[in-house]
């Protein structure tokens, strides 16, 4: 049985070319970029070049790129770092009910630390409303954090409009762009964001590295101490080989972005058409017109997630849903709860399929067939 990976929003396989770029760095570049000798300088050169590429990819200055261990750390730094440094200007944070836990759990922590948090609701289409942001703003608001593309539904959020709205407001605007980066055109000036999170392993790069874009004038406290790296905002010896791999992944992503968008969209359409052809009952969560090419979230009435995911895996289909609790069982999706309400059936019968490098038209068709036959079996009365 062939295993088919349909979970690229969780993580992606590394592009072979990324691996090929990294191997010689492992072998030849081991210096500490902070060292004042030739070994250190050599490493520093690679790091600087990687930083330059990342900055260019979002039309930022290289000084505005802070390397982190990944998306979660970048989100933590963006949120905790800015509100701590700007407490004198206010204590109000705005975010949404559908953020990734890297943001949600961080603001919950900040709430316990005395900050006030407004959680914006999510519309039936999977988007938050700019109007709601406007109404939630007060002169105490110091940070607005709204994700670019929701990781469960794939729905693209109105980031540019919110950026426009916040132009005249003191609040910093952070967006977690982990699911957007690589497929959407991101120009930080144009979007009006002050902080932006990106992760390498979601775009066929290595794990363990990501970055936070922090606009030049953003006041940001470090959360770690012990070194001068990343202009003191993120001390610790840099992950040079990771940065080089990340750089290569970014170059590849930028190179043929439009082409990949089309390919992933074809996968999505093919998958949906095939499911429909097999005559099973299903519905798409979130307005499909608003979703990113690589993600589709499907509700299968009359089933439940644990049954579906286990059956899928036993038949070689890797997909996911919501977030796993620590004891392994699947909790109702907080994103779908935000859209439909807490006890709605869709929160416990929906699966996210996400397309990427692992897929081919053939394996997407094959996956649809296996999914359909499982759903048929489970819904047969």
């Amino acid at each position: 049985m062939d295993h088919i990976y349909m979970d690229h929003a969780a993580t992606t396989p590394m592009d072979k070319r990324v691996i090929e770029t990294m191997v010689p760095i492992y072998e030849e570049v081991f210096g500490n970029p902070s060292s004042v000798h030739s070994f250190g300088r050599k490493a520093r050169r690679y790091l600087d070049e990687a930083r330059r590429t990342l900055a260019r990819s979002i039309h930022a200055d290289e000084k505005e790129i802070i390397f982190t261990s990944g998306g979660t750390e970048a989100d933590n730094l963006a949120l905790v770092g800015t509100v701590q440094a700007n407490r004198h200007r206010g204590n109000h944070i705005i975010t949404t009910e559908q953020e990734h836990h890297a943001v949600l759990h961080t603001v919950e922590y900040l709430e316990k630390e005395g900050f006030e948090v407004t959680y914006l609701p999510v519309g039936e289409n999977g988007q938050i409303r700019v109007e709601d942001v406007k109404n939630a703003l007060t002169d105490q608001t110091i940070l607005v954090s709204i994700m670019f593309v929701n990781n469960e539904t794939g729905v693209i959020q109105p980031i540019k409009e919110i950026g426009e709205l916040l132009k005249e407001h003191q609040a910093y605007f952070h967006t977690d762009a982990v699911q957007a980066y690589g497929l959407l055109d991101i120009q930080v000036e144009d979007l009006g964001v002050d902080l932006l999170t990106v992760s390498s392993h979601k775009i066929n790069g290595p794990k363990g590295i990501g970055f936070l874009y922090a606009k030049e004038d953003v006041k940001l406290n470090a959360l770690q101490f012990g070194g001068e790296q990343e202009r003191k905002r993120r001390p610790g010896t840099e992950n040079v080989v990771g940065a080089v791999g990340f750089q290569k992944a970014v170059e590849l992503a930028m190179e043929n972005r439009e082409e990949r968008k089309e390919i992933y969209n074809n996968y999505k359409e093919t998958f949906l058409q095939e499911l429909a052809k097999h005559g099973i009952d299903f519905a798409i969560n979130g307005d499909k017109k608003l979703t990113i090419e690589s993600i589709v979230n499907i509700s299968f009435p009359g089933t439940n997630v644990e049954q579906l995911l286990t059956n899928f895996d036993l038949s070689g289909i890797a997909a996911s849903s919501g977030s796993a609790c620590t004891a392994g069982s699947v909790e109702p999706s907080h994103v779908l709860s935000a859209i439909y309400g807490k006890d709605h059936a869709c929160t416990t019968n929906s699966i996210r399929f996400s397309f990427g490098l692992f897929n081919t038209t053939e394996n997407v068709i094959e996956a649809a067939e296996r999914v359909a036959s499982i759903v048929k079996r489970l819904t047969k009365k």
Partner: protein
Amino acid sequence: MKDNKDIRVVVGMSGGVDSSVAALLLKEQGYDVVGIFMKNWDDTDEFGVCTATEDYDDVVRVCNQLDIPYYAVNFEKEYWDKVFSYFLDEYKAGRTPNPDVMCNKEIKFKAFLDHALSLGADYLATGHYAQVRTTDGRVEMLRGVDDNKDQTYFLNQLSEDVLSKVMFPLGHMPKSKVREIAKEAGLVTATKKDSTGICFIGERNFKEFLSEYLPAQPGEMQTLDGVVKGRHDGLMYYTIGQRQGLGIGGAGDPWFVVGKNLEENILYVEQGYHHEKLYSDALIATDVNWIQEDKVEKTFECTAKFRYRQQDSGVIVTRLEDGKVKVTFKERQRAITPGQAVVFYDGDVCLGGGTIDEIIKDDITLDYVG
């Protein structure tokens, strides 16, 4: 005949040594083994920690050692509705329930079995100490060979149909052997302590736990003749035959719980382990399940257990209407407790069982027992 590799067996894994070895043995026999952890109870504390996390982690580690896929399934709602509600209702009624029997009936061998079947499983396996025997298409349940570990008492509510889809890979071996196999295979659970007590209470104080769900109503402790001997903390905290925690001092033999008066909230106590009020000669059981119902006579002799790990006693069973039976004891029995299970055996074969409802002596129902 299908090859073992084409037979899918879902193993209910708790993170303990028994289910770990059950999975190991099935894997060695070449079955298509799938490990599944059941989460039935949410005891997440203020730090976001739940005991299930650690157990699941052990399941993950064992399954990785065995190279079998592992998953989890959540039956918290089903457990609450079918087991915990029953548990509280029984305590409210002054009885001593057996949640393990109910859990096996409603969760492990119903909801969980259905889940396993929905995954294309041919069999569900657990680490219970019991045996399934199939003869000419008929299925029986036999005691586990380890007398001290036999768990058929808790499995008395399973039907023949359910048993036909069940495997108990440990039933034919002693517990010591199970530990030995686990150690030899280097399983991470080899030396893990056996879980004790009722699963959802765990190591916690039982009284404290119960008081979180049921209001305790303290009242009087009296002898059956009405002599007040002290106060009790709430009838639900006591069970028939109990000696500990009464707090009655003084001369003579120790005091024991002999009954409860729910209406007047009185706990009856008498002096002496062998006090005659603790003894009875028959009982009525309800919700009786017969594993092979068509083979059970109207009246017959067999042996029975009234508590887990008790020796069998000779009884005469008479079937009544509505799934009830009258069980007459060949010798008087001490401290038969309403709410507990009575389980019937013919030699090593478990015939089925029911819930003890009424206690009888000299043809009179002992109302004072509760």
